[in-house]
Each structure stands twice: as C-alpha cells, then as structure tokens.
C-alpha cells in the first residue's frame, strides 16, 4: 500500500505514485543522485562526510539505534578490501517499512549505500533482502541495472575515479539473518548463525573483511541528510533522536500502514494518523518497537512520544519502529503464545540457552493457554528467561525473553486467571470478532 499519512516527509516523498514512481527517472526528477554527484564532484573528504552524518544524530533504524556516523568511523582506514551491507531482512514481526522503501524508492537506498561506500572506502556492497519479498528483490535488481547503466554504479562513477558496485542477495526464510552477523554468514552461503562478537563487523565482517552494516531505512536517510545538512535533519526530531522515522503500525487500528513522522511525535498523534482504534474499541496494549520489544499497557504508551529515549524511559524499546496495537479483544496469553512460538521457531539453535530455552518458554506458555497451566508456571517462566538473557551469542534469546517478562509483568492478572480458570479472560467469541476477518454473515 502506498503511504497513508506523514508529517514532514523525507523518505516517503517518493512514495506518492506508489508502484509507478520507483524508477530511476522518477528518482532523478525528485532530485535523486544529486547528493552522490555533489559528494563526488566536490571530492568531499571521508571525514567530512562522516562528520555530517554524525551531526544528524541519525540512529540506526534496524532496531538497536546505534549512531550511524559513529559506526562508520569505526571502519579501519587502511584495509584494502571493505564492504557495505544493507540489512533488508525485515523479519521482526510488525515491521514492514523497508519493504515499502524498497518498492517505492529503491534508488534512495542505492544512493545511500554508494555514499556510505565512499565514506568508509568500500568498493562493493550487498543488499540482503528477505526471501518473502522476492518481487521486491527483483525490482531492486532492476533498479541496480538502471543505476549501473546510468553510471552511478561500477567503475569510475561519474568520472570521479571512485568505483563501487552493489548486488542484491536474497534470504529464504530465516528471521535470524536480520542479526547482522547471521546476515553476513548467510551472504557467505552458510546457515545464518550469528557470530560471536567481538570482533565486530567493522573489523571482521563479510569474508572476514571490514564491513559496515546498516538498515535499509538508515541508508535511505543519507541522501536526505546530505541534502538538508546534518543539523537541520537533527532538528526535525529531538536532541539525540535525529530526523524522521518510519513507523509501521499494525493490529487493531483502522488504517494500518507506514507513517513517517519526526522523532518525538506523540503516540496519540500516530494512532490518530492510523485512523484510531478499530471499531472505536479500547486500547489495551502496544508493542512499540517490533515483537522483541517489551509490551506496554495502553495507558502507559498514550503518554509517550515516539523516539528512542521516551520509549526507553517507559520500559520498552523503539526498536524497528513497528507499532503493534492491541485492543481489548486480545487474550494476552494467546498473543504471547504466538510470539513465543515465533522465537522457538526462529532460534538458530547454536547457543544452548536459546535453543533449549526458547522451546521451554513456548511449551509453558502453550500449556497455560491450553488450560494446563500451574500456579508455579509464572515463576518458572521468569526464571527461565533469567537464565537465557545475556548468556547467548546474539540478542535473539533476549528478544524471546522480553515479551514473556513484559507480558507477565503488565498482565499478570490475566495470566493468573488463565491458570486458575483454565480459560481466557477475554471471551473467545469477542476475540474471534476482533480480527475483522469475519464480517457479519461470513462463515
């Protein structure tokens, strides 16, 4: 779907024509590749370029929110072979912004990656696109061909002497490849099992070479930052939370979709842009940053603004900007059961605590949901999550633990009710109607 609403659009300016506006000439007409041209023609120094990005306080849009300029500055200058990698694995439940960016404005990602390549001294890049959006992968390959034909990619770009080529690599169904080192393993033709860090990709990345990895949205923001200047970009948002951000709003709202708003926009405003609660029902809970972020009760999130710091203060994470909205028709036990199943299904299986713990969590939640819970189960769940967190190679084990802990913390009564009464607190028929799948008279 094309864009529904924005405040201060940057990344989404090109989305207006939906599927009809993605190609090179449209992008150039919007001023695309101007920043690349400027960087190359002015022979901007790598340090100046990185400084500009630092000024913008652009924070990684993939979930961790790490300052992008700082990350780029970690790349060793002298290394002869370096890579730039884009993370379009987008598998975090609730997140669907990168797909639209890639569908409607792939050249902004390409331009951002070329500029990043210039900044860190890489001559090649890969964009890792998750397998479920193969049509988008194909479009991106087409966009790459266009860029190559126009001289934006390849040897001696625009006569500058700078050479950079970019390729698309697709996944084939593994959430863990969104984790940056799992992603690198996957590009290398292996299972996407994350690597132990350190060494970090900036020192030992793709094929063992220094590598910068950023999210799709992060790269797409680069041309805009250079266009308006780092400082102006920062000022769009809040201090320490620069610029605009895409929020993927899903769940019980009237108009689910992507919304680009400045950092610091009140949640209430975002909810309003998304058409408000479906059927005017009451907001029960929101997961503000993708399924791995702790859930927040409705009243808590209503007081938040949408930026890294505010959400963190409320006890959750802005993550990938995936806002999952749940109304009163949701059984929190069932919701958690589905999320726990996801982590159980997607654990790569190498670390003992995650491989064994993710299944354990799922089985206990499943048991509670199916009326076989025991009074001690909530303590057990907390203990198991305790034993998983911070003991694994990547953060998936923590991601599996956060929902469990936060659901129990904020909705303990509902879990206890389930254990005691062996059934949902929310009437199943109410739950059933909540999805909107069944219209009156249907099935």
């Amino acid at each position: 779907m094309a864009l529904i609403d924005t405040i201060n659009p940057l990344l989404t300016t090109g989305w207006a024509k939906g599927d009809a506006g993605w190609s090179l000439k449209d992008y150039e007409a919007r001023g695309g590749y101007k920043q690349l041209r400027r960087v190359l023609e002015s022979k901007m120094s790598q340090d100046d370029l990185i400084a500009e990005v630092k000024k913008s306080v652009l924070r990684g849009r993939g979930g961790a929110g790490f300052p992008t300029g700082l990350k780029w500055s970690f790349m060793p200058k002298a290394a002869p072979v370096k890579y730039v990698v884009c993370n379009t694995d987008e598998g975090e439940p609730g997140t669907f912004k990168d797909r639209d960016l890639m569908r409607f404005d792939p050249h902004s990602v390409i331009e951002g990656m070329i500029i990043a390549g210039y900044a860190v001294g890489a001559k090649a890049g890969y964009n890792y696109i998750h397998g479920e959006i193969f049509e988008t992968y194909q479009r991106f390959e087409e966009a790459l061909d266009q860029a190559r034909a126009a001289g934006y990619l390849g040897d001696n770009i625009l006569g500058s002497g700078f050479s950079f080529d970019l390729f698309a690599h697709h996944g084939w169904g593994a959430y863990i490849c969104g984790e940056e080192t799992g992603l690198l393993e996957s590009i290398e033709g292996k299972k996407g099992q994350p690597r132990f860090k350190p060494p970090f990709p900036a020192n030992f990345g793709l094929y063992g070479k220094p590598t910068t990895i950023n999210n799709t949205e992060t790269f797409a923001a680069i041309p805009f930052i250079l266009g308006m200047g780092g400082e102006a970009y920062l000022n769009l948002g809040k201090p320490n939370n620069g610029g605009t951000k895409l929020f993927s709003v899903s769940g019980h709202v009237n108009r689910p979709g992507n919304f680009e708003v400045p950092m610091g926009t009140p949640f209430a405003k975002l909810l309003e842009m998304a058409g408000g609660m479906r059927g005017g029902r009451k907001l029960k809970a929101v997961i503000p940053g993708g399924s791995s972020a702790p859930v927040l009760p409705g009243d808590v999130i209503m007081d938040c603004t949408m930026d890294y710091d505010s959400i963190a203060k409320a006890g959750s994470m802005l993550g990938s900007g995936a806002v999952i909205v749940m109304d009163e028709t949701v059984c929190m036990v069932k919701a958690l059961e589905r999320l726990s199943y996801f982590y159980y299904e997607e654990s790569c299986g190498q670390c003992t605590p995650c491989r064994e713990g993710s299944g354990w969590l799922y089985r206990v939640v499943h048991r509670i949901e199916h009326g076989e819970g025991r009074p001690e189960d909530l303590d057990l769940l907390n203990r198991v999550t305790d034993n998983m967190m911070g003991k694994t190679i990547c953060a998936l084990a923590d991601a599996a633990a956060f929902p469990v802990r936060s659901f129990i913390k904020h909705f303990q009564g509902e879990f206890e009710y389930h254990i005691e009464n062996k059934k949902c607190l929310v009437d199943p028929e109410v739950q059933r109607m909540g999805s909107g799948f069944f219209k009156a008279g249907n099935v």
Partner: protein
Amino acid sequence: MVEIEIDGKTLQVEDGSTVIEAAHKLGTYIPHFCYHKKLSIAANCRMCLVQVEKAPKPMPACATTVTNGMKVFTHSDLAVKAQKAVMEFLLINHPLDCPICDQGGECQLQDLAVGYGESASKYEEEKRVVPDKDLGPLVATDMTRCINCTRCVRFTAEIAGFQELGQSYRGERAEVMPFIGKTVDTELSGNIIDLCPVGALTSKPFRFSARTWELSRRKSVSPHDGLGSNLIVQTKHDKVLRVLPLENEDINECWLSDKERFSYQGLGSADRLTKPMVKQGGEWKEVDWNVALDYAAHALRDVATTHGGAAIGGLLSPHSTVEELYLAQKLLRGLGSDSVDFRLRQSDFSADGKRAGIPSLGMKIADISGLDRVLVVGSFLRKDHPLIAQRLRQSAKKGAQVCILHSANDELLINLTARAVAAPSQLPALLAQVVKAVCALKGASADAALSALTVSAEAQAIAQSLASGSNTAVLLGNFAQQHPQAATLQALAGQLAKALGGKFGFLGEAANSVGGYVAKAVPSGSGLNAAAMLKDSRQAYVVLGAEPELDCADGALALAALKKSAVTVVLTPFKSPAMLDYAAVLLPVAPFSETSGSFVNTEGRVQSFYAAAKPLGEARPGWKVLRVLGNLLAINGFEFNSSEDVRSEALGAQAEFVSGLDNGLEGVRLDLSAAGGAVERVADVPIHFADALVRRAPALQKAADSAVPTARMNSAMLKKFGLDAGQLAKVGAGGTAKANLVAQLDAGLPDGVVRISAAHATTLALGPMSAVLSVEKA
C-alpha cells in the same frame, strides 16, 4: 604479553590468547564443551561463562580474548549462576541414560552435571528424541544425547578437510548428521568419538563390550605407518577392547587414524595362530613349542650345512619390533646368511652401499608444521600418512604452500599450490625438471645430466613455489620409495633440497622403516636384498611377521619362491591358507600388543612399549622365540634376559633418537630414461590392506577405504580399451591375462597408466607393483 588476573592470581599471557587458555596455564579449570584447542572457536555451548570485571554480562572464556589488566572470576556468583543455568538447559533434553551409555564414566556432561547441575530439573515437558544416524562401520550414534557442540562437525571440516558432518535444521530441531544416505568416510573418522563430549558418538566396535572403569590401560605405540602414534591400549581379561590416542604434540598430536584406532580388532581374529604347527608328511599338526623349535632349528641347520648359509633368506616385516628384527638378522647371520631384508616393497636397491647413513624423515615430525614450502614426491599421502597429511592441511591453511608430484591425482583435501602428475616412468624426468627450474631460479648450477631437459609448465609452477620459500622440504612418499628408479628420485630430491637450502627426507612406510636399518635387518656383503632373494629363490626362508605374497613388491614372485623352497619357517601372529601351503613350521609370535619392544619412527625417535595383554594361547613374544632358536642353533650372543637387553645391544645407549641418520647419497647415477609406450601399472597399497594386522580388522574391512581393488584409468584409457566404467576388464601382466577387475574412471590419472592396488588377493597374480600391463574387455 599482557597481564591478567584470574580468581585473584595474576599471570602473563601472550597477546591474543583467550581467557580459557590463560586459565589452563594457571591450572584453573573452566567447564566447557564446544571449546577444543585444535578446532575453531564456536562459543555455542555457553558452559564456559565467567565473570569479567566491568562486563555487565557473563563472558564465554573460550571466545573472550585477554586484555591487559583484565580481571576474571570463574567462581563468582554471576559466573556460577550462569554456568548452572547453562547446565540446566543442557540437561533438560538429555536422556540421562548414563547407566546404559558407553560414555558413562568418561562423559564430560556427566562429570560437570555433578558439579554444576541442580538435583532436580523443573523441566516437565516431553524430551526431544533425535533419530540416530548411520555413520558407517566405525562410529555408533545416539543422537538424542547430542548437545550440539559441533565439535564433530568442525573436526570433519577443519581437521579431516571435508565437511562430512553438519548441523542441519535450526533451533531445537537442530540435528547433527551426515549428508542424507552418506556415512563418514574420512580415514580420521574415529577422532570424532574422542571429541564428542557426551555419548552421542561412540565406537561401534567397542559398543557395549565393557564399562570404561573395568578396563586396564597401557601406553603403547602404533605398529602401522612410520609416524609411531602414541596409543593407550585398553584391555579387559587380556583382550584389547579399545585403542585411544595418547596425546603427543610432537607425533600424533591428539589424533589417530582409523587404522591405528581400530586395527586392534584384528588381534582377536580367528586367523590368530595360537599353537606352534609343523607340517609332517603334508599334514599340519599342532605341536608343543619344543617340538616346533627343534624342528625349525634342525631344518635351518640342515639347509645351512648342505647348501651353505647363503641358501637361507630372511624376509622380515617392517612392522616387527626392533628387538625382533635385530635378533632375526643375528640369527640369519649366525647361520651364515647375509640375505636378510625388511624393505619388502622396495624394488630399486641400487642406492645400497652408497648411503651416508640411515634414511629417515630428515627432520622432526613437528618441524613439518613449520615448513613454508613442501614438495611431496610419489605419495598417496592421505592414506599412507594420514596424520602427516593432516599437518600439511593445517599448514596450507596458514599459508604454507604444498605441492605434489605423483603418478595419481587423489584428493588430498589439502589446498595445494601446484601439482604435476605423470606416469611412473616419467616421474624421474619430471622431478628432474623441477630441480632444473629451481636451480635456474636460484642461480645454482644444475647436474649436467639435466641439461637436455625441457621444463614443463607444471614443473615450473612447483619450482616457483619452492623457490619462493625460506623453510622448504622435499618429502619422498611410499610410492617414490617403491619406484623402480627410487635411487634416482632420491638423488634428485637431494639435489633439489640442496639448491633450495632446504631439507629432504623419507616418509616412513612402516613402524620400523628406520628401525629396520638400525637393527641391521638389511643385507650386507654378498647378501641378497628382498627382491633378489625372491628372484633367485633360496632353499630356505625365515619369514618374520610378514605375508610375503601381500607384503612384497612382487607378491606372485614371493609366493612362487616360498613354494619352491625346501623349508620356510614363519614366525607370525596369524596363519593364512597361503602360509599353510608354503611353510614347514609356523611359530606363533605375539603381535605388538602382547610383547614388549621398540619402534624407531620415521624421524628416528625410539619408542619402547610394554605388552598390554598376555599373549593369546601359546603365542610368545617374537624376541623370546628368536632367542631360543638362537640358543638351539648354538649361535653366539643370544643370551638375553629381557627385551631391554636386546634393545640395548641393537640400539646402544638409551637415547630419545637413534644416531647415524643421514639421507646423503654418493655416486648414484641419475637414470632419467623412461620406458615408453606400454601401459604402466600404478599400484597403491590401500590403507586397510597394508599389513597383516589391519587386513584382519573386521570393522575397518567394512569401511569405504577397504573397497575391492578396481582397474582405474582416465577416460582416454577407458576408450582406448573399449571399456565403460563398471565393465569388467581382463588385466594381464607379462603377456597372460591374470585378473578380472572392474574398470573405474579416475579422471586424475595420467595417460598410459592403469591404477591397480597391491596387497590384495585379487591383484596378487599381476606380479610386481610396477608391472607393464595389458588390458582388454573381459
């Protein structure tokens, strides 16, 4: 160097060390499963979590590199809590069937669970069951016990050189397995049994035969190839039930080849000779020792008296101990014969009398790992010397350049820099080209005999690689040593090493390839060598530990000579139909596990060992049998009280390494002629047929490396003979058809050759390993 503190103790460790390495240096034990010093770091089991000052989370000691001033706590609350958490996770899906598990008593999980586990787990869900896998005849699986540490997977990929095992699927369904329908076929497969920290991978031949604590253990030395791997031989009621590596970084590291590990099964073979036997009037009779020894002594004395001592020949197995070899040659010499030899598969003896000393590896085994350029000449390296191949594989990964010059192109699983393949007759000229090219690159003058040679591209590539190094070696394999122009190859290797300022040496074929020389088990004076004493057949033979029809360069010739002899006395642990045919007396001597003795390995290291078990039946240690024979024959100098006595006489003063090693060669005329046109045989000695013991090890005989020999050739040769792969070929040598063998495509073989393994009953009739063959469609 950095200074770190572990549990309050400070120490200096090298930059880049990991915390676990540092802890080991201190003698501090950190629990671990996936970590192994020879494998890459996986950091997946998480058992080694420790607390590091300032780190908010526990850190894996196996993957955390030390930094200056780092403070590590292995027993703090944080560390112990993390370790206990991991242990609980490891146990929830583990079957806990220790009482019936072969690993019981030596299981790291069991051991650690005692220290780190809680008494009762809160896990009350159904446990995971993982289907077992068929990994072949050597390794048994119980995959439900697997803790997914991936040690076995990393072993196949990194040490064995080809990833035969993998961890498939993901998450809780992750499963260690071979490729669907495949087994683990590497010649090093048994090592995964040692590596597996739990009872998921166990020894199939050992399975359920004993509980580990019932076993007695003895150190021993492998009797097979020239490496001399160190062993732990485990017995119950004087039966060897298991063989494990004894770690020795200078020799076998912590590995064993499957041959070394599983050949013990042959010790219990039904072929074991357990009573002395004498042939009387064409009938074999089991007799008492004194009868048999009397008989043997008289028969030999008779021949010596009637025909002269020179009419007796001694064929000694290079797998015999130094003590046996020494006494056997002394016995023969006492009878007046200088015809004694242990180099049974050698065919060119022209270097005899021209050697500066005893030929050996010419360096320490451990030095191989430090070479930066290596040329291997004439070797089925991976199968003939599995653990030396393994060393070179690791070196190549670290940047050493390894090249090979050979008559076959087997996959070595080593990242080779260059290779040159040619028919056996072309091998000397090819090596000479390398010498010439290296001399040119180094500005040294080459032997005049090389002036007419043109250097091929392959030879040039090898030369270039060698000349670019600073620590080079040329290693002559079994094939080069068995080659009809072996002396030339050796002389060329010497020239090459000289031009490179490097080393050259021999990869010893057998446990006593060096020891045989030291024990003087070689002809002297007018004595005949192994080939000559078969060609010019003797009235009597003394055979020690060998099956000459399978162990000699020309098995057919050996068989004919033995049959023709008036008397053949065989000292052997095993009997065979062939022996019953040609022998007059069979004296049961103890195999390596039932006698004390010594091997001198390929680098010249003396390794002595004790018996691990009592001799089976009436078998007796070979040295004792030979001593009594010497006494009966009234030969001087046979008054020994122990094998140590024999050893001191044979080897002189106790020393770690024998003296007198020198690969120098003086006065060998280079023979660069090449017999052209004919179809040449390339004969390997398959790893599991190489000696009498391994030939009788049942599980090994079922392994992939024990396939029946075929006639291998490239597609041009197949076409030339009108053969399709899989069809039967009639193969002849010396004009007459002798064997029907399945034709097999081996694209790596050069034109003009057919590869047919030796040391096998089906190819015995073809005669010499270097025969000229005729091939047609059967």
